């Protein structure tokens, strides 16, 4: 069947509702890459086999990620008429026990992380039996969140077009194609205030308007899913968990600017995202939601996937275009901007995954609704992957304008293992490290830039007292040095030069003059580089010099690493009073530097020791001391 009218859509919607909210039992297992890394596949198999063995009839669905990655593997159990519970850190054994309880007619509250309330349903609140279980939206991790981009992720079967439609999917495309003009669509996006979520924050509507106004035989729209920033995985989650939202947003964008062809560029490191998008494109085509004469409106649109090949610079839009054209992923100077001359010299719009996933929500609920979320000039929501040394890791979607404190302390629950948070890193290698002194800073594009970082595409990495800020700067410069495409000299040579200086400093061979030199080189790489990669590459250096200069000085003047991290500046010893001789460190040491008999004092051979600190991390007694 092909979807031609709204009533066709309504039919699919009821199909989707019947699987989303079935009369019996539905179990969803979060099986995005993060879930799989935590062992969700084994949990899924255990649920499946045990249900089979006990003859329990159920719908077992692999879904995307619901965001609380810390608690993965997550299992969502819905029993019609009874309730809906989310279980955290499920093991295969627990999964089998759950099936046994369910088969016996039980919905065990024990071990449940939260109750998932369903709007306008009999399951909108927990029954008396489940009254002790906290509501999902009242957990500290979720209470300040507002899900727009992540509205479906983890809740629907990612490849079921029917379930996507059941949750308002494709209503917006119908609205746009049947009731609105391209200019009307652009006006909604302009009025919503949506800004590009790839990180730069350029108003999406203005980009579209420019492209719309140009006469050309062909135009293109590209979805940038080359999410290369280390520490960010929002785009992956959306592509894996809700691929149709991106495809629908892209189709609406194509209609608005007058493009009939689109490309979704996904990085090679995301095999599951590539698989899901490929399946979703095929399904949308089969049902006529891609192809000719969509909704009988006369509008034709096709989309295909391009798989990247492991080059960070391809996230830069002109490099990405060049990569699709079959050239190297090398950027070119702008202007001309792709909106006037992009893919094969044709007007081209490039939008980030999150931007496109937001579009259907704006069209469906209106520009005013979207603009009412967030703050003036920074409307809507932003999604961060909150990771690193923080208690609660996961994906967090919040209205713009929340403070860093809200993110790290309220939602993130503070430092990992009760340690003191020292810095917040956003924007990947293009961003900076902000100190906790800026905890009260509201998160907006402008504030983040003024503070010396950037909003970026979603990475928010928390660092604690054990993280050396000079080493972090060196880490990022190592990254940009390796990923610099080499086309322009300031970036190619400058990143290497800065990396060398930082390596000297972290090896205890730096001088005060090196700090001046570092600042000078940073300024000219920033000014003279061709594309965003080089222009922003010095940010990690400049921001750490600005906020953590004392750490640089300690490395240079006192040859001391305050965090106890830099290998050349520390020594590890075992404290005789605390060592129980358990042998854990001996087994952990990669170079065999630790010796000692069982239940006797162990000793580190200083000649062999590489100062990797694995022994320090594993010792249950805290007997390994870092001498700074």
């Amino acid at each position, binding site marked *: 069947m092909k979807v031609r009218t709204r009533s066709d859509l309504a039919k699919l919607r009821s199909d989707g509702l019947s699987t989303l909210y079935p009369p019996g039992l539905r179990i969803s297992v979060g099986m995005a890459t993060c879930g799989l890394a935590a062992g969700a596949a084994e949990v899924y198999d255990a649920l499946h086999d045990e249900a089979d063995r006990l003859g329990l009839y159920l719908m077992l669905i692999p879904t995307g990620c619901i965001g609380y990655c810390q608690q993965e593997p997550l299992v969502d159990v819905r029993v019609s008429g009874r309730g809906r519970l989310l279980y955290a850190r499920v093991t295969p054994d627990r999964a089998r026990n759950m099936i046994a309880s369910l088969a016996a007619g039980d919905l065990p509250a024990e071990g449940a992380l939260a109750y998932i309330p369903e709007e306008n349903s009999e399951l909108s609140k927990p029954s008396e039996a489940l009254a002790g279980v906290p509501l999902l939206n009242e957990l500290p991790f979720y209470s300040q969140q507002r899900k727009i981009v992540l509205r479906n992720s983890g809740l629907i079967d990612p490849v079921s077009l029917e379930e996507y439609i059941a949750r308002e999917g494709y209503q917006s495309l119908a609205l746009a194609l049947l009731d609105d003009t391209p200019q009307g669509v652009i006006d909604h996006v302009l009025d919503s205030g949506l800004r590009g979520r790839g990180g730069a924050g350029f108003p999406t509507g203005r980009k579209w308007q420019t492209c719309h106004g140009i*006469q050309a035989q062909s135009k293109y729209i590209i979805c940038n899913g080359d999410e290369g920033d280390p520490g960010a995985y929002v785009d992956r989650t959306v592509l894996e968990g809700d691929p149709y939202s991106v495809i629908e947003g892209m189709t609406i964008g194509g209609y608005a600017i007058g493009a009939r062809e689109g490309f979704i560029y996904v990085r090679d490191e995301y095999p599951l995202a590539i698989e899901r998008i490929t399946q979703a494109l095929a399904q949308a085509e089969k049902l006529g939601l891609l192809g000719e004469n969509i909704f009988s409106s006369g509008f034709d649109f096709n989309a295909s996937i391009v798989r990247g090949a492991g080059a960070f610079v391809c996230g830069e839009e002109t490099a990405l275009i060049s990569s699709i054209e079959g050239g190297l992923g090398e950027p070119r100077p702008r202007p001309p901007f792709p909106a006037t001359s992009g893919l094969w010299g044709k007007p081209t719009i490039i939008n980030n995954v999150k931007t496109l996933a937001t579009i259907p929500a704006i069209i469906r609920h209106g520009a005013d609704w979207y603009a009412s979320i967030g703050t003036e000039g920074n409307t809507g929501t932003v999604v961060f992957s909150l990771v690193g040394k923080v208690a609660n890791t996961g994906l967090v979607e919040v209205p713009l304008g929340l403070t860093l404190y809200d993110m790290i302390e309220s939602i993130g629950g503070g430092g990992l293992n009760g340690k003191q948070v020292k810095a917040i890193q956003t924007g990947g290698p293009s961003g900076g490290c902000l100190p906790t002194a800026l905890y009260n800073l509201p998160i907006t594009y402008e504030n983040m830039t003024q503070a010396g970082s950037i909003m970026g595409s979603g990475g928010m990495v928390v660092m604690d007292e054990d993280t050396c800020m000079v080493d972090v700067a060196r880490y990022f410069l190592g990254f940009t040095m390796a990923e610099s495409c080499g086309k322009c000299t300031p970036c190619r040579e400058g990143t290497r030069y800065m990396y060398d200086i930082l390596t000297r400093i972290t090896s205890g061979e730096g001088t005060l003059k090196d700090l001046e030199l570092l600042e000078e080189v940073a300024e000219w790489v920033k000014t003279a580089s061709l594309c965003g990669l080089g222009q922003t590459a010095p940010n990690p250096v400049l921001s750490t010099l600005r906020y953590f200069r004392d750490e640089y000085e300690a490395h240079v003047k006192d040859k001391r690493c305050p965090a106890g991290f830099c290998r050349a500046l520390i020594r590890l010893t075992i404290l005789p009073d605390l060592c129980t001789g358990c042998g854990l460190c001996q087994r952990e040491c990669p170079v065999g530097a630790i010796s000692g008999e069982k239940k006797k004092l162990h000793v580190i051979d200083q000649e062999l020791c590489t100062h990797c600190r694995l022994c320090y991390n594993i010792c249950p007694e805290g007997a390994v001391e870092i001498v700074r």
Partner: protein
Amino acid sequence: MPLIEQPPPPSGGALLAKLHEINAKHGYLPEQYLRSAADKLGIPLSQVYSAATFYSAFSLKPRGRHTIKVCMGTACYIRGGDRLLEKVEATLGLKNGETTNDLVFTLETVHCLGSCSMAPVMRVDNDTYGRMKADHLPRILKKYRPIDIAAQEFKEQGI
């Protein structure tokens, strides 16, 4: 608008798709396949070669049957990714970028696998392993090279 527009090339991403296809089949990019790819796509071999060497997903040298990628993303790095790499190197007797003599494993680092909440993370082929600890390694590697690793374990235990 010019009267006659140049027709656009047949399809976007064709070269990358072709290289991925060859890579998936052979594990690397053998020269004769690059030559025939250039012929088929009607582009110079130099263009194919420059793409084959620009992107880190491709290799001109044979690689192991299984590729181990240790994640060096920010979250993994600050949660001990570099140490995990050292442990993998020590276990396999390999340096980053090398392949075992029996062509079973190639060891690489990757800038981010996008599973940052599970840091530190590594991937073998398409299987991702999160919350990695050094002592998980033997069990994981065994899945991909059962005999050799078992032999090594026996040796260690003096069997």
